[in-house]
């Protein structure tokens, strides 16, 4: 009962937000003279043959993996009340460096992959570390510095790609780094489809899916079950109380940003190891900004972020079919934007509802006469269900304001 209530309470806000977003974007489409039902039909159409359908699933999953990682990177910082808007620059710079290092060496398979991953994490962590150092030593707002560093990172990445790291021949239309040798590729997971008797599509499901899933579990444990996670969340809920409790605020800023950056460094890895094997001028961009929306929709909770990443990946996949069907692909952007707005609003509403409920219950327990204090306690213990939803929402909604602006420029 109590568990059910907790789940319902936790899901109500995002579900409501998504429904509202579908309705609103449907109305927008109708106003623009596009039939929303046809658009939704195209988006939901995964193809006719089993092979096409599985391919669509693979496309969605492959896109969801980096979005999930990006959402995690943002959420780690959000949970501490830090806005790491610099995920975009962190992963782009990390990926170009990792691609170059990966191409430059030949190692036995697993080691080669590990090296690429470690380089990516280290580069992104260092880049995020600059933000942290600026904040703790000079008091620079991480929002400002991480946005600024995005431009620098993208500039450096372009310079490296066109200059020292260029592996493509002169005059090629797409400039790329040298290709990573096959020992540094990560095998796909398509064997799984055979296992379930599904059609084996031509496209490979990224092997990095396993790493991402483990990463999600690890971060969930880190945030919710460890002392470090407690310090981090406490700082997010109340910096002053956390400090009085003995949390080293500056140290936490540095550690959290390094961690957030290290995770951000992994965003480009699934594509790099799975398909492209090199960093190119048309390497997937914008994942860092989408990650902010994903974290927001997932309420900074790894399980929620996974769902949010799948949803955004689903929307992303619809881009090509929509264009083929001659619909404006901007409807996807509209839906994404409306979802973010709706989530911000519904999170705040859910927070207030939870607070009211908590107050009411406490008011019932409150006026108990002084003498009979024990009676108020155990009998109502199960009622604490709403509590879980309220915690951690505050930084989420605060983050929302930032995200709206970023969505505008990022998407």
């Amino acid at each position, binding site marked *: 009962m109590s568990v059910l209530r907790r789940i319902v309470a936790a899901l109500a806000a995002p579900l409501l937000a998504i429904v509202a977003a579908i309705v609103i974007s449907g109305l927008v489409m109708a106003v623009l003279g596009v039939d929303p039902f046809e658009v939704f039909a195209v988006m939901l159409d995964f193809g006719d043959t089993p092979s096409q359908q599985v391919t669509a699933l693979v496309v969605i999953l492959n896109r969801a993996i980096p979005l999930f990682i990006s959402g995690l990177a943002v959420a780690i910082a959000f949970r501490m009340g830090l806005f790491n808007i610099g995920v975009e620059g962190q992963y782009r710079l990390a990926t170009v460096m990792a691609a170059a290092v990966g191409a430059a060496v030949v190692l036995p398979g697993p080691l080669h992959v590990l090296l690429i991953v470690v380089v990516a994490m280290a580069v992104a962590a260092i880049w995020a570390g600059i933000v942290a150092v600026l904040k703790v030593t000079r008091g620079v707002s991480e929002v400002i510095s991480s946005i600024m560093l995005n431009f620098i990172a993208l500039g450096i990445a372009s310079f490296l790609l066109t200059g020292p790291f260029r592996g493509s021949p002169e005059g090629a239309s797409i400039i790329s780094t040298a290709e990573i040798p096959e020992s540094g590729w990560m095998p796909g997971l398509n064997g799984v489809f055979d296992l379930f008797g599904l059609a084996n599509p031509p496209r490979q499901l990224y092997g990095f899916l396993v790493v991402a899933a483990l990463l999600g579990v690890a971060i969930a444990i880190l945030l*919710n*079950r*460890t*002392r*470090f*996670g*407690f*310090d981090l*969340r*406490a700082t997010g*809920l*109340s910096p*002053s*109380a*956390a*400090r*009085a*409790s*003995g*949390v*080293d605020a500056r140290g936490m800023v540095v550690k959290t940003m390094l961690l957030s950056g290290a995770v951000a460094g992994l965003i480009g890895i699934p594509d790099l190891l799975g398909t492209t094997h090199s960093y190119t001028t048309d390497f997937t961009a914008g994942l860092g900004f989408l990650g902010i929306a994903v974290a927001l929709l997932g309420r900074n909770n790894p399980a929620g972020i996974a769902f949010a990443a799948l949803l955004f990946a689903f929307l992303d996949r619809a881009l090509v079919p929509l264009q083929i069907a001659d619909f404006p692909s901007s409807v996807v952007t509209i839906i994404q934007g409306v979802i973010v707005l709706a989530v911000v609003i519904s999170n705040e509403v859910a927070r207030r509802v*939870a*607070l009211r409920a*908590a*107050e009411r*219950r*406490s008011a*019932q*327990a*409150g006026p*108990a006469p*002084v003498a009979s*204090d*024990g009676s*108020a*306690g*155990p009998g*109502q*213990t*199960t*009622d*604490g*269900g709403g*509590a*879980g939803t*309220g*915690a*951690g*929402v*505050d930084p989420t909604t605060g983050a929302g304001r930032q995200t709206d602006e970023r969505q505008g420029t990022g998407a």
Partner: protein
Amino acid sequence: MPPEDGATAGVPSGEPPGRGAEGAEAPLAVELRGITKRFPGVVANKDIELRVRRGEVHAIVGENGAGKSTLMKTLYGMHRPDEGQILLHGREVHFRSPGDAIAAGIGMVHQHFMLADNFTVLENVVLGSEPTKGGRLDRGEARRRIREISDAYALGLDPDAMVEDLGVGDRQRVEIAKVLYRGATTLILDEPTAVLVPQEVDELFGNLAELKREGLTVIFISHKLDEVRKVADSITVIRRGTTVGTADPETTSSRELAEMMVGAELPSPETRTSTVRDTPVLELHGVTVAGAGGRPLVDAVELTVREGEVVGIAGVEGNGQSELIDAVMGLRDVATGTVVLGGEDISAWSTRARREAGLGFIPEDRHRQGMLLDASLWENRILGHQTRPPAVKGPFIDRRGARADTERIMREYDVRAPGPDTLAVALSGGNQQKLIVGREMSAQPRLLLAAHPTRGVDVGAQAVIWGLLKDARAAGLGILLVSADLDELIGLSDTLHVMLRGRLVATLDPTTVTPEELGGHMTGGRTTAGAA
């Protein structure tokens, strides 16, 4: 449920002087009847009774946190009271927003100025109610009206000066002009002198006299009793969220007001059997905390707390007590001097190391420093004890252990809440404070820093907390107690120091000192140890 007229609500007040006859014929500008306002966790105002006559300066005094600002926000329409009536000039009103209050002629001058620095005086004054001509700001009209107001009340404002070029006193006058511009006949000034230097205070009082002469009503909120007595025509005292009486500034001394404010008649637990042992737990040697303006906030404090001893620090708020506590906790850098805990110099230790070494901490502002309001009680149990069992196992949080121990604290310390998963914000102030006390005691500290341990809690919780502190003291705990409640200090302390402008200026024997004497020392009126 309208309470009968003239009743001093609820609390057994010592004296309600100055109440009575004149209320009948003189029209009241503002009358509050039985106002009660609850917030999640606290009852901020309870059965407030306030009667302000037209054309007077009416002061509302009370300690910080007594509920003055909440009351004024109610009157200004920033929130609605849960119970009670507001009457303006005899008619009941219901404000849904400050806009309604402004329309009814109530204006608020906030403690923190709400001015746009890069706008001129004129622009700031008209902001939000601009006179327009053909859709554009009518500067001529605005300038004329501001000049009119400035001249009528001797505010001396130049409409075209930039606000960023103005001094604090001028800015305050701009705020007053803003309110008058909107046609206010009743002005609320929230701690207006807090930001002013003495000359500016005199100027402000001059302005208030002008306002009064023109027939306006001023409600003046303060806790500076001397100023209140100088400027007010009548005084209402608030303590613990409720009005405890009114006073006539002509016939009431600052001391009597202070007693009404802190509630000198409240029973204080006497702890006369000394449990002081020889071993010192905390020694402060020449502890100095640097201040922004050159004058140190804490100035060469020498202090020893022994096992089983309660050392009280009395002082008017803002004389360095908070900074001293922060310095001992490691939340503020010590410029010179050493902090010694149980024989070890901990001056350079982190807050966490100090806590692990046996420092317990009851902060003065529990919402800011003591709790995570949006987290559950069991998570709050962990706060400050992240490195010690039962809350943690190695690097992991022990949820089960934390929940079980929270239930124990709730039982033993009488924290009334539905369960350990309840959000802290849903608890009343007293229950939150009992949870904090229970949490800090559970770690078996050697020294407890207790800053205003019973502030903002109801009388029942206060008695419980006093009892807990007494028991802990008997068990050998050293306690450094900072409080604004003189009876709490005198009743609990074994040694009593007085802090004034960052220095310990007197050491008193709590068995013989009276609140009056103590008050004298606190304001620097009496001197013993050669303080200038």
